[in-house]
């Protein structure tokens, strides 16, 4: 629970509506709920933010270093902690975050039924279709993917979760998922998602691989290979709409000539599907 952390204790609403918490040095805590946001004082100090970061990593910065360098890590409950501040760079690349100035905690929540509008599009005559969920950040892609994985698992499909940062399954300290994923879900976490997809296809013979936030060329290659092996892929990616996704270098090949048969675009409000597009870009 986020309010177990001393800095956040007594500052968060306890009615289950919390969606996001933002902390900035010298500013009050910004708390966002589905109904809106508010600032909760007093101002956060540098020492408080540093201590919170240590507590969130279990006093194990070394173990989260690579994820911190990339900008975010995941808490055991699946909440994503984004960080920014003063970076150190060398030879054109970021080598580390030397001082965190702001933190954004996005609250993970299992919403049973979040994938209900998508499910009829995923299964056609018992055959699973590959699908890609597109939306800007914060509109419920991960929640929808997680629920789709759970529902597919309950329907009898073998589901493999390539969960690079543990946001889908929210693994606890021992690695076991804390989110409900149904009885037929295998989870791989802790490594690059392309490598996880490759291993899951090879080792677990899944019916469908589920993964979050495709973007790199390695991800695209892994998705192709899974599809070539006869495994459906259910994934998500950041994009405002289908044309924007087509302009993204890492996604374009997957959209032009990829395995995806269904594209669901979220917008307006979290979890709302505004458009479902087929592989040719036409409305399905």
């Amino acid at each position, binding site marked *: 629970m986020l309010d*177990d*952390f001393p800095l956040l204790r007594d500052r968060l609403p306890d009615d289950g509506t919390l969606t996001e918490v933002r902390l900035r040095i010298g500013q009050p805590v910004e708390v966002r709920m589905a109904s809106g946001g508010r600032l909760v004082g007093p101002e956060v100090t540098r020492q408080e933010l540093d201590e919170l970061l240590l507590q969130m990593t279990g*006093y*194990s*910065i*070394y*173990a989260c270093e690579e994820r911190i360098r990339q900008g975010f890590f995941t808490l055991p409950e699946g909440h994503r902690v984004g960080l920014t501040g003063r970076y150190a760079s060398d030879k054109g690349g970021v080598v580390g975050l030397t001082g965190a100035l702001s933190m954004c905690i996005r609250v993970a929540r299992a919403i049973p039924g979040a994938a209900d509008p998508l499910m009829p599009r995923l299964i056609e005559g018992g055959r699973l279709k590959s699908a890609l969920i597109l939306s800007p950040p914060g509109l419920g892609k991960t929640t929808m993917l997680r629920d789709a994985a759970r529902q597919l698992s309950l329907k009898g499909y073998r589901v493999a979760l390539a969960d690079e940062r543990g946001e889908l399954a929210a693994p606890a300290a021992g690695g076991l998922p804390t989110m409900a994923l149904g009885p037929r879900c295998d989870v791989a976490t802790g490594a690059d998602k392309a490598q996880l997809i490759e291993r899951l296809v090879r080792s677990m013979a899944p019916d469908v691989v589920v993964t979050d936030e495709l973007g790199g060329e390695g991800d695209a290659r892994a998705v192709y290979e899974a599809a070539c092996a006869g495994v459906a892929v259910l994934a998500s990616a950041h994009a405002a709409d289908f044309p924007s996704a087509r302009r993204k270098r890492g996604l374009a090949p997957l959209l032009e000539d990829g395995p995806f048969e269904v594209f669901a675009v979220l917008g307006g409000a979290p979890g709302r599907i505004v458009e479902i597009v087929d592989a040719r870009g036409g409305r399905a």
Partner: protein
Amino acid sequence: MMLRLIAAAILSAACALAGRAVAGACVRRAQALSQLLGSVQRLRVDMLDKLLPLREALQNGHPAMRAVAAEMAPMPAAMPAAMPAGGAGAAWRRARGALAARGGALDCLTAQDLDALGALFDGLGESGAAQQRILLSGALENLEALKAQADKKAREESKLYTTLGFLAGLSLAILLM
């Protein structure tokens, strides 16, 4: 006469053993430092190669490390309100008294040994892998130096107290005879 000679021999041997036992504390210190060295080496592998969270890595080690792990706040998901904040350094300061007290896992160590451990726990886990590597290497060097010192002292004191014990036993035996 024969019985007296046998009694004198037994008395001398018993006093020599008693002298050796007096030097036992030094031997136990050397053994404890040796075990701690092994645990710090394992800690380095668990932390920097396996990337285990600090608390989990400490739980795989020497009883003193397990005591520090127990004093640390659990993983954030389960951090109770009553749990004081602070990392391994604060946990070590809370655990040190009980560990160093008579019957504790570190009761044979000197203040210098305990300070060396304190220097390790202060900052443990609170920086990136490169800095942790330096911290752990420094701690290993310190503990190795202390162990070498303890080994030397154990050898010297064992020899000294055994000889003193034997001589005391022999004197008693001569007096008895």
